[in-house]
């Protein structure tokens, strides 16, 4: 048993209480027993003395007749076991039951003995004293011997106190024995009781320990109405509430973790010492690190990026949000918008939250849009410049110039046409890109449509002596919007005719495969350089700007084709070899 344990102290207190009460009892018992024993002895001595006095003729004493006293008192003295001494008033011993007459004659004067003194004063004297004669503690009791009102002597009875001591000792022995017994019992019972009290407390301690370790699976099962029961109930309620809170916090943490890990943005949290607390998977991906690897490290140790580090240091210092643009060139060029916010705890900056947003794509789109606007503006302004300039020139007098005047008007007409085409294409593109476009889908026989379109190109075909072959099967049918399909075919045929060689050829054919119709427009023209093929469907992308313009191209034809086909859920593609010709294809649902 642990010396400091509650159980030990409880048992100790029982033992102490028993001991204290025993000592108290024993002390008073001993005292009163001793007193009682003395009192009893005294009274018996008194009785005996009175008895002896009664049987003692007073003239024996008056006469100081030692021999008569001897003969009269010898026998009774032997019977009563007490020592009888008769003393005359001057203090001379007349008789002593334990001395022979010879010895009595040699005995010293007893007048100075306290009990004798008292007796000669007419009262009962008593004294406890060590007897020099008998060499033991003795109780002395002396009575005056009176004759006709006159004190003629004193009778003294004495008894050794040895007996009283013996009796007291026996009683004390019993008391000590029972004290030991009681202590043992107190210890044993105390232990039992203490264990009974301690047991539920131990139970509570064990359960509380479990609670502390986060195990709330078992309640404390104590079904008593006492304070411990109340404590257990309170602990159970507390545990339940803690468990609920812990669960709530865990759920929140999970949620937060889920949000952080599913976030497209990178998130870094650092403490006020600029040590990394956590990073999310996006950050792990961006910087090629892992959470375990960088957690707890100084920012620059974990993520060696000065731009970010500077932002964090600034935020931690000023306690104000900051943002910065970060460009990483490895492994691929990426642009990030970095927003850093201070995290406050009781009005003091305790960390920094970094959100890293990948704006590469946004920038790219921005660039594409800017480029488009720039392109449109350039494409519109160029013909307009010619129109305006030549009109101005004509007005300034070139009308009279027979040699050039007419050709200027031709140029103006060409550019007006070019402008018209461009505007039409731009409008078509804008329409295709707007979300509200509604396709009027219907089954269409593609061969007939192609034939009609080819008729429109008759003049150009004839001019360049091109061989045209429409090998599209008559049975080939697609479900599409007629206008859009016509536009796609027109643009592709237009390109095939434009970018052809004199006496070249154009061939149209198609097939059905896996629920799709694939239509191919193949020419044996000038072809496309391999480096231009990936960008050929981009708006305003031209392989040869000058040639395209000369041929009246807007640079938007293929872009329109792509949009139209994709609106139908189809795909477009091109295979081409420079100098040998191109093969444009598209698919549509049959």
């Amino acid at each position, binding site marked *: 048993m642990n010396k400091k344990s509650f159980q030990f102290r409880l048992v100790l207190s029982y033992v102490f209480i028993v001991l204290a009460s025993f000592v108290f009892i024993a002390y008073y018992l001993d005292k009163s027993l001793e007193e009682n024993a003395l009192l009893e002895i005294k009274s018996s001595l008194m009785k005996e003395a009175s008895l002896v006095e009664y049987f003692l003729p007073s003239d024996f004493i008056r006469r100081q007749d030692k021999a008569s006293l001897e003969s009269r008192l010898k026998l009774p003295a032997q019977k009563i076991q007490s020592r009888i001494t008769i003393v005359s008033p001057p203090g001379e011993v007349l008789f002593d039951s334990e001395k022979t007459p010879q010895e009595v004659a040699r005995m010293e004067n007893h007048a100075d003995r306290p009990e004798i003194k008292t007796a000669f004063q007419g009262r009962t004297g008593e004294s406890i004293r060590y007897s020099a004669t008998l060499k033991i503690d003795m109780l002395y009791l002396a009575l005056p011997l009176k004759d006709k009102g006159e004190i003629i002597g004193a009778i003294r009875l004495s008894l050794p106190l040895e007996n009283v001591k013996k009796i007291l000792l026996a009683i004390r022995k019993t008391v000590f024995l029972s004290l030991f017994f009681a202590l043992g019992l107190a210890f044993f019972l105390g232990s039992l009781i203490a264990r009974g009290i301690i047991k539920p407390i131990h139970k509570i301690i064990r359960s509380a320990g479990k609670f502390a370790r986060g195990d709330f699976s078992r309640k404390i099962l104590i079904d008593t109405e006492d304070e411990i029961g109340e404590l257990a109930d309170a602990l159970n309620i507390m545990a339940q509430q803690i468990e609920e809170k812990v669960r709530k916090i865990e759920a929140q943490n999970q949620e937060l973790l889920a949000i952080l890990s599913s976030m497209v943005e990178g998130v870094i949290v650092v403490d006020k010492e600029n040590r990394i607390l956590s990073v999310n998977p996006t950050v792990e991906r961006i910087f090629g690190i892992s959470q375990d690897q960088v957690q707890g490290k100084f920012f620059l140790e974990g993520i060696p990026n000065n731009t970010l580090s500077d932002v964090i240091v600034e935020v931690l210092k000023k306690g104000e949000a900051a943002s910065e643009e970060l460009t990483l060139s490895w492994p691929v060029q990426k642009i990030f918008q970095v927003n850093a916010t201070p995290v406050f705890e009781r009005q003091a900056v305790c960390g920094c939250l970094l959100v890293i947003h990948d704006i590469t794509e946004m920038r790219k789109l921005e660039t594409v849009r800017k480029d488009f606007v720039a392109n449109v503006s350039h494409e519109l*302004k*160029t013909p*307009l410049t*010619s129109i305006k*300039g030549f009109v101005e*020139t004509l007005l*300034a007098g070139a009308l009279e110039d027979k040699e050039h005047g007419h050709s200027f008007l031709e140029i103006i007409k060409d550019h007006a046409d070019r402008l018209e085409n461009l505007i039409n294409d731009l409008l078509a593109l804008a329409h295709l890109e707007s979300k509200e476009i509604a396709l009027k889908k219907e089954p269409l026989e593609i061969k007939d449509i192609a034939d009609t379109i080819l008729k429109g190109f008759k003049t150009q075909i004839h001019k360049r002596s091109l061989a045209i072959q429409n090998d599209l099967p008559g049975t080939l049918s697609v479900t599409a919007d007629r206008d859009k399909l016509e536009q796609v075919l027109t643009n592709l045929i237009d390109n095939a005719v434009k970018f052809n060689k004199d006496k070249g050829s154009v061939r149209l054919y198609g097939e059905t495969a896996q629920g799709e119709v694939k239509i191919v427009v193949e020419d044996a023209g000038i072809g496309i350089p391999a480096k231009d093929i990936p960008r050929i469907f981009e708006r305003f992308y031209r392989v040869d700007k*000058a040639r395209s313009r000369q041929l009246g191209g807007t640079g938007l034809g293929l872009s329109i084709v792509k949009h139209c086909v994709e609106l139908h859920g189809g795909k477009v593609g091109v295979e081409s070899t420079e100098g040998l010709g191109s093969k444009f294809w598209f698919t549509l649902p049959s």
Partner: protein
Amino acid sequence: MGLKDKAGKMVLIVEDDKDINALIAYNLYKEGFSVESVYDGLQAQERVLKRHFDVVILDIMLPGLDGFSVCQAIRKRKGSHKTLVIMVSAKAEEHDKMYAYLLGADCYLTKPFSVGKLLEVVRDFNALRAREYTVEVN
């Protein structure tokens, strides 16, 4: 101002659009200049490095080499401060203009520009040059 002031003055027109190039060439020719036309940047660079031009009409978006680089090439040549560089472009943004002036362009015209305005600039410049010449002689 008569034709003879411009006699022998060389103009280089750098413009990839053939019609615009022809338009400028016609008007400057009528103004009395000797005109040379080129249609891409590399060709223009080659020309300006080879000889002095009194006036260079310079488009920015050119095949080969852009107008800014050509302008730089012009200004690198000794005595090029006597060359009038007029930039003509569809780019209307302020930073493009600033850049052009920074590289040494004297004038920046935004397409669609007015032929009259272009001629005015050329005439004014010539008048200025003529005065300078007079001052030098005296």
